[in-house]
């Protein structure tokens, strides 16, 4: 087997895996902290991608800039969504189930609003550098991959430092580990949950934009993205930020290696099959022991 092919496949596999991780990190956070499975997470990511697309085609604004600009916008939008829709279901007997049904509905609504605004035609995000590559020896680092990779590292690091270093972030973690005790210490659970949810959604925007640099997208694309979300989050462990990043690496490595060594027809099957076996043997994610 040819070394260049293997390494090249690995490079792009890992970079794409990291983009999935960026899209997933917020999903993992809402699930871990609030026990809300946010099905419309990817749809918000797609909304970010569409916004960036419009900014690029109309005003020529670079998607990376849009990723930064769309974050506060999505943050505010998500605060509203939390206030109106998510908060009521956090009182359900089974938050996971109720939130899933509700956000499934929200995803359908978002998808069709996007279809009304941007039409059903497929779109491609093509900033000037989109089809270039950084060439190091025999290896090509494709620009969209590099940008996605960089955004991913930045986004995941931002979430990580928010949780570890800021007061609000520490309150989020406290609220998540011991909700009763945290409340006793004056942590406002409602506010904390809203911030968590909104932060999660704003990272989805950057994730959606990075993914849009790699593949074409349509209003229904979020359904496909959602599958990656589940896979990355489960492999990384729910609520585990570093785990999410590592899961992106692992999934990227599996895809990359199977792309290099297997007939392409079997790549997707092997990826899903491997994940199945993986889950059977490590049912709590890669880095957690026990439940």
């Amino acid at each position: 087997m040819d070394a260049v092919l293997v390494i090249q496949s690995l490079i792009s596999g890992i970079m794409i895996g990291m983009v999935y991780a960026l899209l997933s990190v917020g999903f993992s956070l809402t699930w871990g902290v609030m026990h809300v499975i946010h099905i419309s997470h990817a749809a918000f990511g797609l909304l970010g991608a569409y916004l960036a697309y419009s900014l690029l085609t109309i005003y020529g604004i670079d998607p990376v800039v849009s990723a930064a600009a769309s974050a506060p916008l999505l943050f505010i939008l998500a605060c509203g969504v939390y206030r109106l829709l998510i908060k009521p279901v956090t009182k359900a007997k089974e938050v996971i189930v109720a939130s899933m049904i509700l956000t499934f509905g929200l995803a359908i609504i978002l998808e069709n609003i996007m279809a009304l605004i941007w039409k059903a035609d497929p779109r491609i995000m093509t900033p000037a550098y989109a089809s270039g590559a950084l060439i190091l020896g025999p290896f090509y680092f494709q620009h969209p991959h590099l940008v996605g990779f960089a955004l991913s590292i930045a986004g995941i690091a931002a979430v990580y430092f928010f949780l570890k270093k800021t007061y609000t972030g520490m309150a989020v973690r406290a609220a998540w580990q011991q909700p009763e005790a945290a409340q006793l210490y004056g942590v406002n659970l409602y506010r904390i949950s809203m911030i968590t949810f909104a932060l999660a959604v704003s990272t989805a925007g950057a994730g959606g934009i990075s993914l849009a640099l790699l593949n074409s997208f349509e209003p229904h694309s979020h359904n496909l993205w959602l599958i990656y979300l589940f896979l990355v989050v489960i492999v990384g462990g729910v609520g585990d930020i570093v785990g999410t990043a590592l899961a992106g690496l692992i999934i990227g490595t599996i895809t990359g290696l199977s792309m290099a060594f297997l007939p392409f027809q079997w790549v997707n099957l092997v990826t899903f099959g491997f994940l199945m076996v993986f889950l059977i043997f490590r049912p709590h994610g890669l880095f957690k022991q026990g439940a």
Partner: protein
Amino acid sequence: MKKAPLIAAAIVVVMLAAFPFLSPEVYYLSFMFSVFMYVILASSWNLIGGYAGYLSFGHAAFFGIGAFATAKMAALFELPPVLTILAAIPAGAIAALVAIVIGYPCLKIRGPYFAVVTLCFAFVVDLAVKNIEWLGGAEGIWMRIMDVQEKLSRSIMYEVMLILMVATLAVAWWVGRSRLGAGLRAVRADEEVAETMAIPTANIKIQAFVLSAFFPGVAGGLFAYYLTYIHPDVVFSINISILIVLMAMFGGGGTWLGPIIGAVILTMVNEGLSTFARAEIARIIYGTLFIVVTIFMPDGILHFFLKRNRGR
């Protein structure tokens, strides 16, 4: 007291069975066929997902296995239409068999992890069928058209699906009141506690999983024959898997009636919306329905009404 619901159910079934004799238009038969089908899917999913709380997100796999097994048997043995319909039963058995093999390792995994393992499983089956020519292939399979009047052939499919629905619901009813059901509910409440109570959790989970795979398998076989042409994209669609879960949960998971309510309402509303409203708007209204119902009835429609009645 206890007989009243039984009599009511019997009357409903007789009325449904008599429906084709009123000579309705074919569409109504087909539409009811799909309502029955989703009731079967949601109710059988409920056995493992509702009673035991093991959310399977890959139930379309069993549906698809049943569909392809039926189509494959029909092609392999050149079955006439009547036998093709009957072939759905062994096809369901194949789905059940796969459920044993898959359930054994997967049911050890709990919570959301189980959901994702089943999701992956559905993709694996879908891709295996597409990649391996013998299992069906990416081209799909055509089946022979029934050589009778269209109304008669659709009436036959209607009655067969009705029988399957009654059988599924009877089994679901029985499970709900049996020791199996009690055990599954204990698993859902707290699996560790259930184990200390000497409930053979692993065993009953497998039983529920196999039952919940068998009926969708048979339904898949009937659906294949109903379509006459099947393709992996159609029967293994992730949308079916998700829809089944939503229907059961929407109506009220873990109850006998909940999935029936969910399946009937969602199928009817979706069909009605497609008829009355413009495409995207119809979908937006459909999405709003999920939100409104969850906000006001976060534990499902059935629980909402049960709670209210108890309140009075």
